[in-house]
């Protein structure tokens, strides 16, 4: 069945419309990052920077310790992603593959965590982390982010494992696979789209988190990018739209590269052949 010309045009049209909506604020941020302060609030608004400048980037890169904050954020986000995806992949497998006492209790309890407003955690984290020495550490942030990303990750994995036909497991059993092999060599390769999508979501959630970082981090050396970027805005001072946008644009780069890298696996992960069994 070939795609008709009309359908092709319709698809392109839709892509353009959707693109406009989803990327326009980003476009505005990127172009703003190349504008000088007096060209930012103008009438009519400048859709394209007429006299582009790299001043904002120079200021962001030279001022502050942006490099350090950047590494801190990457460290936190990557650690969170690896640990959280690993734990969720295990748990998702456990919940999907087995029947055991308390299975649904725990499964729904994990989901229910996500309905709890963040402020419930603020004071307890502050008090408890202060007592056990996790306050003002990146480890403290990572542990919180792992917990916060688990509910969605576990449920996603359950969804993906559920799609694996049981005869695949049975076949593997006949081949003499043990529990861990079954998980690592049979189930996990079949949920690559799940791993990819969970990784992207967890990475971005940890990479951009602000509220908990504000409460748990004290010293300059432990700050993450969102904290540092928010710090560019001063009370009773002009909002530095240009430098903010420049910092935001730089911060997007690793996330963007990750998603391009990961998309490759998202497209072709779940092979039709494997499902045929």
């Amino acid at each position: 069945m070939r795609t008709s010309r009309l359908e092709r045009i319709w698809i392109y049209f839709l892509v353009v419309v959707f693109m406009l909506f989803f990327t326009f604020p980003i476009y505005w941020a990127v172009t703003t990052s190349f504008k000088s302060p007096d060209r930012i609030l103008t009438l009519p608004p400048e859709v394209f920077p007429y006299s582009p400048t790299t001043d904002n980037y120079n200021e962001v890169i030279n001022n502050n310790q942006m490099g350090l904050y950047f590494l801190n954020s990457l460290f936190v986000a990557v650690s969170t992603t690896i640990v959280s995806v690993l734990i969720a992949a295990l748990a998702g497998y456990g919940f999907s593959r087995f029947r055991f006492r308390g299975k649904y209790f725990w499964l729904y309890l994990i989901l229910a965590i996500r309905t709890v407003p963040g402020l419930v955690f603020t004071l307890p984290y502050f008090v408890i982390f202060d007592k056990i020495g996790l306050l003002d550490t990146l480890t403290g942030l990572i542990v919180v982010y792992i917990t916060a990303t688990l509910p969605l990750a576990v449920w996603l994995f359950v969804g993906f494992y559920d799609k694996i036909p049981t005869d695949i497991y049975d076949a593997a059993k006949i081949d003499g696979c043990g529990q861990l092999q079954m998980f690592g060599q049979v189930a996990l390769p079949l949920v690559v789209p799940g791993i990819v999508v969970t990784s992207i979501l967890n990475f971005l959630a940890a990479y951009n988190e602000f509220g908990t970082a504000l409460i748990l981090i004290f010293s300059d050396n432990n700050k993450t990018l969102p904290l540092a970027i928010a710090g560019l805005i001063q009370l009773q001072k002009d909002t530095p739209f240009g430098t903010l946008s420049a910092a935001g644009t730089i911060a997007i780069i690793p996330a963007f590269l990750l998603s391009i890298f990961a998309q490759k696996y998202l497209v072709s992960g779940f092979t039709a052949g494997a499902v045929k069994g």
Partner: protein
Amino acid sequence: MLKITKYQQITRYQRRKRFELAPYLFVLPAILFIILLAIIPILYSLVISFQSYRLGAPDSAIRFNGLDNYIKILSNPTFIGSIGWTFTFAFISVSVNLVLGLSVALVLNHRVMQKGFKIFRSLFILPLMLAPVVSAIMWKVLFAAIYGPVNYVISVLGLPSVSWIGDELPAKIAILVIDIWSSTPFCVLIFLAAFQTIPTDLIEAARIDGASKSTILFRINLPIIRNFIALIVSIRVMDALRVFDSVIVFTNGGPGNSTETIGTVIYKTAFRYSDIGGGSAGAFIFFVIIVAFTLIFLKLSSRNVEV
């Protein structure tokens, strides 16, 4: 023949023995995290919700005050007033999320887009990537009075400019747009991943049988990924009901209190107004509302599946 039976017996025996512990080993790490870093803090806050815990008051003033916090927050007109708008908001936001997310995912998954356009998939999830503090500022600029591009376009079209933060309806629309913009990419991602679980041979078979595209979509694709749709709905409903950032940054609840959500009211109570006990009480009332809502939703949706 005999050999095989023996083999099966052995595995069955092993299975029974090992399987008792195995499932718990798989789920244990996750459960440990949840208990230590979610359940314990929640219980801690639950205790606080029954105390007169105010920041800035001496420690000696902190004592149990029974249901006072709960009664107080329930008699707070702003809190009660925020419930209706929060649910309206969640309903509209999640509905648009689903329709828009599915449309974008279908377009991206279309064979026309398969070759050479993969980068588009990454472009569509850009809203998830931009630091929220920056995207909030950008939306403020876009919707700004006088200098905002949105109002500029409106005035070019010859229409009167809109007061996006000053009037109730425009403020609500703007908050919805901002939230939909930032949350739909999540749905797109999950739809895209979910599509990967649809066996291609099934669709090929349907095509050969002459099924139309909409039939394939509604009769084959969507039913196969219904788990994922349910997941998107429940996660998004939870997140939308907790809506906080887009409101605080854009209108701070105004004009008046008309865009205050449950999330903003309890946050303000706890941290801006320093009444942590009261804020926690509000949070638990909110939690109960959501759980009740979710149970009703699950009950209704499972009935639908049976039909």
